[in-house]
């Protein structure tokens, strides 16, 4: 029952804030939601404690709690249940912790927004859905949570629904996710069709039955069923976790309020895909093709999105592209069968990326909703807490030892190196180069925002996105120097910074190489030995730190920082020159590899013209002309013809009756 409370508390809070929040006093919403999510975090932490410290002595590996059977189809039972194992326990803690901190932060960030209660309702609902997703013990419930977080994401991206760009971004996110969800549900359907069950434990137990089965994609093309199912599932993960080519919604989702970017589009929801693949590790292990598909997609995402991060001027977009890139890292880890590394990176990334986003949000509030990096600068002294926490986040993101990013990213690169699936070499080089790029764009952002001379005074007055403040107030506020954000904003920053620093050192050994995950993640270490090799080389945290100085990633990261420093602080004009020199490349990057344009040209317009064709041919002619009006005309014609039968004369009817009698008698006589 305690388990059920973990997702239900946020749900009740969401319902409260949603239905009564407008009428109740303003601060009730945040008290209820924060309390609910906070309590849920405490319960999750307790579950994690139990899982991590009590279970090993008991020998328990996982616990399957079925709450409720809501559909009994004889052989198939659809249930609401929780699968508690080290994987879900870890995710629960990460989700509830980040969510709780974001709730607290929101109190400060959304202080003046008219949709205050609505916002709390949405994020509490998101927390509920995400918890349902990570805790579920079957595919259907997971899909429910999966769609629930998608819905929450849609609602929150379009939170400021009066802005057309926000509603469009929301739609885009929703539609892109539909593409992924289609793959996901096809994958679920395939597994269900073959195994007849949606329960994870049963699927894992019977995964061997899938080996050797083939499915015919179209006549003559036979693929291993396992591969098709895994790729379909991974397409779902690609949508949710924004992998190339389904990534374009994530940068646009930055239209939403910053806490959302932190919670949903960086820390938790986008990692749902990674989590799902890790959860399905026993299935994915069976298909080398799917693994290699993942590793290639992940590496491509990691490198291309890092490149795009270099040219962004919007502070949130820089962080958004870094998120995409880091998700690519996680996907590579999955492809290399280093599931624990992926999950570990997911966890540390949740901390430092939420931290970076919240810090960016803090800067944005201080500058009155100014998001352009070119109009920042010199905030270091004005906002020391934000600066230092952001710096910690940047170090962690760049993977500098001893911050958490180092402990999670290094193993991924190593795993890509030692993996044996096709494409691992490409992934290794892409990731290594990615380290340089990551450091470069991260510190470019830090330098532009916090160092150098202040540029915010020059900002033009017309471009504010502030909603509440009247023009006069804005004007007055603008001449005040930016000041440090209130405590509800800085405290979450500090907590996340502490997590970002310590998570790596404290948890690397047990999570990565220890037996923390037990059987929750089952790699086939003979066929896919990357993790085993890493494990063999692991000699504890300290030696790993020292070892770092002998490997390229650290030096590449430092080089990236130096490059960023050169182009932003030392020689600010050099960047422009370089962009000028590499005009074509710069254009490609500025236009996001033209992927958005391609989608616009091919898919949007193609759909549009196809729809037009259907409207003209299908709707106007067939549906309206033939079916609707045709039916009417047919009936009319039939009635016109048949009305002559109804003469109104009694004897005609009597004649018909007699005739009918004759026919009946003939019928009976024949028998």
């Amino acid at each position: 029952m305690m388990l059920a409370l973990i997702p239900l508390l946020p749900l009740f809070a969401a319902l409260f804030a949603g239905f009564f929040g407008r009428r109740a006093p303003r601060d009730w919403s945040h008290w209820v939601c924060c309390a609910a999510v906070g309590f849920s975090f405490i319960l999750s932490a307790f579950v994690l404690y139990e899982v991590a410290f009590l279970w090993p002595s008991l020998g328990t590996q996982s616990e399957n709690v079925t709450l409720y059977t809501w559909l009994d189809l004889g052989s198939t039972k659809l249930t609401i249940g929780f699968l508690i194992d080290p994987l879900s326990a870890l995710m629960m803690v990460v989700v509830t912790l980040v969510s709780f901190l974001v709730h607290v932060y929101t109190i400060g960030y959304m202080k003046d927004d008219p949709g205050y209660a609505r916002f709390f309702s949405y994020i509490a609902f998101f927390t509920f859905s995400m918890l349902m997703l990570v805790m579920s013990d079957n595919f259907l419930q997971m899909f429910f949570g999966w769609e629930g977080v998608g819905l929450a994401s849609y609602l929150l991206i379009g939170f400021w629904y009066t802005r057309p760009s926000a509603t469009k971004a929301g739609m885009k996110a929703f539609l892109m996710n539909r593409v992924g969800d289609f793959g996901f549900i096809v994958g679920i359907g395939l597994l269900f069709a073959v195994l007849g069950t949606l329960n994870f434990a049963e699927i894992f137990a019977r995964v061997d039955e899938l080996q050797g089965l083939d499915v015919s994609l179209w006549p003559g093309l036979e693929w291993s069923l396992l591969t098709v199912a895994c790729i379909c599932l991974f397409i779902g993960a690609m949508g949710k976790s924004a992998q190339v080519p389904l990534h374009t919604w994530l940068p646009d989702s930055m239209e939403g309020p910053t806490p959302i970017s932190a919670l949903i589009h960086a820390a938790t929801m986008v990692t749902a895909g990674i989590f799902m693949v890790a959860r399905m590790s026993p299935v994915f292990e069976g298909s080398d093709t799917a693994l290699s598909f993942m590793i290639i997609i992940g590496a491509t995402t990691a490198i291309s999105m890092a490149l795009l991060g270099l040219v962004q001027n919007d502070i949130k977009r820089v962080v958004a592209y870094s998120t995409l890139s880091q998700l690519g890292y996680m996907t590579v880890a999955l492809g290399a069968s280093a599931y624990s590394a992926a999950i570990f990176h997911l966890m540390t990334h949740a901390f430092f990326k939420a931290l970076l986003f919240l810090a960016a949000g803090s800067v944005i509030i201080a500058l009155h909703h100014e998001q352009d990096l070119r109009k920042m600068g010199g905030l270091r002294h004005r906002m020391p807490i934000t600066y230092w926490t952001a710096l910690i986040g940047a170090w962690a993101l760049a993977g500098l030892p001893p911050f958490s990013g180092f402990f999670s990213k290094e193993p991924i690169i190593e795993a890509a190196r030692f993996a044996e699936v096709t494409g691992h070499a490409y992934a290794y080089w892409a990731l290594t180069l990615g380290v340089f790029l990551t450091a470069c764009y991260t510190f470019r952002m830090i330098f532009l925002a916090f160092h150098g001379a202040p540029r915010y005074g020059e900002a033009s007055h017309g471009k504010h996105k502030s909603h509440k403040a009247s023009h006069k107030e804005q004007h007055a506020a603008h001449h005040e120097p930016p000041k440090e954000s209130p405590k509800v904003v800085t405290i979450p920053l500090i907590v996340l910074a502490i997590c970002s620093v310590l998570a790596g050192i404290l948890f690397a050994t047990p999570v990565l190489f220890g037996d923390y995950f037990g059987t929750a993640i089952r790699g086939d270490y003979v066929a896919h030995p990357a993790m085993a090799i890493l494990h063999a080389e692991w000699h504890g945290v300290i030696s790993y730190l020292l070892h770092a100085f002998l490997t390229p990633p650290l030096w590449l990261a430092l080089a990236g920082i130096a490059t960023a420093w050169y182009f932003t602080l030392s020689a600010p004009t050099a960047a422009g020159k370089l962009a000028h020199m590499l005009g074509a490349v710069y254009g490609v990057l500025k236009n996001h590899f033209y992927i958005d344009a391609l989608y616009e040209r091919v898919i949007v317009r193609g759909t549009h013209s196809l729809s037009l064709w259907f409207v003209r041919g299908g709707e106007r002619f067939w549906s309206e002309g033939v079916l609707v009006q045709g039916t009417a005309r047919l009936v009319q014609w039939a009635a016109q013809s048949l009305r002559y039968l109804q003469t109104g004369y009694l004897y005609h009817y009597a004649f018909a009756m007699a005739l009918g009698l004759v026919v009946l008698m003939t019928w009976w006589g024949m028998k």
Partner: protein
Amino acid sequence: MSFSAFLFYVLAAILLVSAVRVVSARQPVHAALSLVLAFFTMAALWITLGAEFLGLALVVIYVGAVMVLFLFVLMMLDVRQTDQTPRWKRHLMPSLLVGAVMLAEIVLLIVKGVKTKAALPENATSMENTRELGKLLFEDYLYPLELVAVLLLVGMIAAIVLTYRQSRFVKRQEPAEQIAVNRDDRLRVVSMPAETETEDAPVHSLERSPEKTGGH
């Protein structure tokens, strides 16, 4: 050929001829009288079959009551058969054709279906028939009998209600309305302020006042 057989053929012939006359007579009165004949013949046939109570009942009910009703109606309606149309026109042929096919099929069914060759029993127990019928009717078939009685009652009420025309010239009392009257229908007490002298009270207002002052 025994006498009963002879009787059967004679009666059957009369029955069929009178039936044909019923449907083909030019005058409805002739049709009605032919129908009376048909009923009589049928009653005789039934009596030869030992159902003398039914035969008599048929004579009494149908010939005595129903047919008289028919004749009454005929006379009341005063139908003049102007008869511009020829008696049998082109629609007769299809009717006869259907009738012929129907007859052929029924005959076929009967001849093929009824295997027995035994002559029907003569009316052996004439006294017993009525008694037995009464017993059966009032013991085994009591409830159906009651139902039929109710049906007759309903039919009677329906016939009366359908044809009943209330005359406009009859004056009668309505005791129910007379009793249901209450005080307020008869007397209205009006509360009126005492009249005060106003200087330019319009004169015609007094003229309108009887409605106000007078109660019924």
